């Protein structure tokens, strides 16, 4: 067992020998910084829950290379964003632009919130409207007197109270 374990350890060490060197960082840190800030705002279409900056998919790699080229060509952030949107649609942006087709997306939650507030207020108002004071009929008065008299008698008769 110990033997096996040490073989395993050796294999683990060997792995390090075979591991690749870290890929060299791009020569220009400014370009890289812009690449990161742009691609963090974009969705990787292969792994949709990852940003383009964080994804290791092949396509994300290619797209980062493409964006890097565009940056070096002196394109502005907006130009790069529209380059991506022309090809992959608004879906590629984590912050979709405000336009008629996305209105529901942008204002929908607020509309629902307003509806909720409306319902809440109408409910509260209805609850606060105290039921109109109801005049007691003669019959009710008699019944009440009888009940009160019973309570009185009970109190006097018993020693608890």
């Amino acid at each position, binding site marked *: 067992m110990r033997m096996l374990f040490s073989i395993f350890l050796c294999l683990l060490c060997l792995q390090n020998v075979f591991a690749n060197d870290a890929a060299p960082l791009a020569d220009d840190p400014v370009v890289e910084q812009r690449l990161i800030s742009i691609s963090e705002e974009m969705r990787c*279409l*292969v792994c*949709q829950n990852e940003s383009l900056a964080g994804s290791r998919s*092949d*396509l994300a790699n*290619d*797209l980062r290379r*493409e964006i890097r080229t565009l940056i070096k060509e002196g394109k502005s952030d907006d130009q790069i964003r529209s380059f991506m*949107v*022309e*090809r*992959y*649609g*608004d*879906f590629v942006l984590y912050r979709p632009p405000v336009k008629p087709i996305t209105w529901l997306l942008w204002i929908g939650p607020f509309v629902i919130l307003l509806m909720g507030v409306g319902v809440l207020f109408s409910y509260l108002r209805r609850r606060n409207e105290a039921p109109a004071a109801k005049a007691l009929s003669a019959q009710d008065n008699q019944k009440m007197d009888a009940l009160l008299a019973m309570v009185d008698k009970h109190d006097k008769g018993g020693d608890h109270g």
Partner: protein
Amino acid sequence: MKAKFLIPLLLFVVLVAFLAIGLNRDPHEVPSPLINKPAPAFDIPQLEQANKTFSPESMKGQVWILNVWASWCVACREEHPVLVEFANSGQAPLIGLDYKDQRADALSMLSKQGNPYRLSGFDANGRVGIDYGVYGVPETYVIDKAGIIRFKQIGPVTREILNQTIYPLLTELKKS
């Protein structure tokens, strides 16, 4: 008064309906912004004859189909027999775009499984794929006589898609 108790039930039904629709949609099918836009131009070497190039410009005046494929793509193998059938039907020229592939692998796949393509462009670094918004192979584009993309299929083309969508579309586009 009684109807009031139905309101939560109704809201619940609406919610369930939305969730059911959401669950049945494939989030990987992103509508392409390229529909009804001109097919992006390119000029790249051909797969079989590396010394010749292919450009969509040369297909002007014809309705044609561009199919993005690769020998490493499993779904393409599934799609392949359908494409061979399509090519045999002679409905429209089928051009391949061999996406991020090794030439030898691609050629051996075609020789083993049959070659449905009139020719294939060889997109070694995937640059053309980016212009076409390719994010998963296979993808298929129907392009009209004026070079406008009319339809895009993401994922394998099946017989149903051919019969229900592509054939009728081709007939319609060929008329104009």
